[in-house]
């Protein structure tokens, strides 16, 4: 699998580290309920199909990326720098 980094171009997947789903947002503040934290820490969708996920280009530009990948085919629909996302947006 190759990921086309917006900064570095197409690179082998071994240059990247996978983190997980890109969209869960950490509940804000100490007032967050236990249920909300449990949801954030443990509960993930497991889609067969399009998945937005975080990858780190550790052997390249050292930038976090949001990769939209089809979990069936590994086809990658888009790659963008994570910092280009509006902070805190669920996108």
């Amino acid at each position, binding site marked *: 699998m190759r990921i086309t980094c917006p*900064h*570095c*171009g197409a*690179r*082998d997947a*071994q*240059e990247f580290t996978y983190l997980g789903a890109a969209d869960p947002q950490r509940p804000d503040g100490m007032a967050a309920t236990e249920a909300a934290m449990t949801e954030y820490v443990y509960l993930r969708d497991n889609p067969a199909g399009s998945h937005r996920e975080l990858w780190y280009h550790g*052997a*390249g*530009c*050292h*930038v976090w990326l949001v990769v939209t990948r089809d979990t069936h085919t590994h086809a990658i629909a888009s790659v963008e*720098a994570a*910092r280009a996302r509006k902070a805190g947006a669920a996108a």
Partner: protein
Amino acid sequence: MAEIATSWRPRSAWAGIAQPGSFGAKGKTGVVATLLDGFGLATLIAEPGAATSLSRAVEGRLGIALPEMPRIVSGGAHDAIWAGPDQWLLRAALRDGFQPLLDELAAHAAVSDQSDARAAFRLQGPRTRDLLAKGVMLDLHPSAFGVGETAVTSVAYLGVQLWRLADGPDGPVFEIMVARSMAGSFWSWFTAAAAEFGCRVADQD
């Protein structure tokens, strides 16, 4: 009071690892590795939105603008090398005057002197691309990686940055830089990979 003597001496990043000579296939010089030494090197990292003012400061001082794409831009005794978004390497051929330059640029970016932290060499010769193809996961064909392009990547699991300079009489010319602490491991890969082509190792002029 007695003077305190010191036996500390500046030491090349290649000392004890690589030395001038030849190795590998007899009677052939497929690649020539020139060990680079004595250069000044610093990382420049601009805060979001501050890259333009940093680039202007570098241009005002050295006459070269910071490349926005993965490229190396050279002007006189200095090179500005893209190293990631809002990040560059600044290289000086010599260290004289390097620290005052870094002090000036520190007003515009996070500046860190890395002069003693990297080992670098220049690679040329007719088999240069064949050699690099054994370790670099990028397409370095001239149609895909032009003169002046740079890449941050890895070779044999070791982080490297490489760039392509103008072609020389024997074809392509690349320079490769690795963390100094990894120089021995990198050289181990390099000597194994280059042996079949025949390699001459030279000191810088």
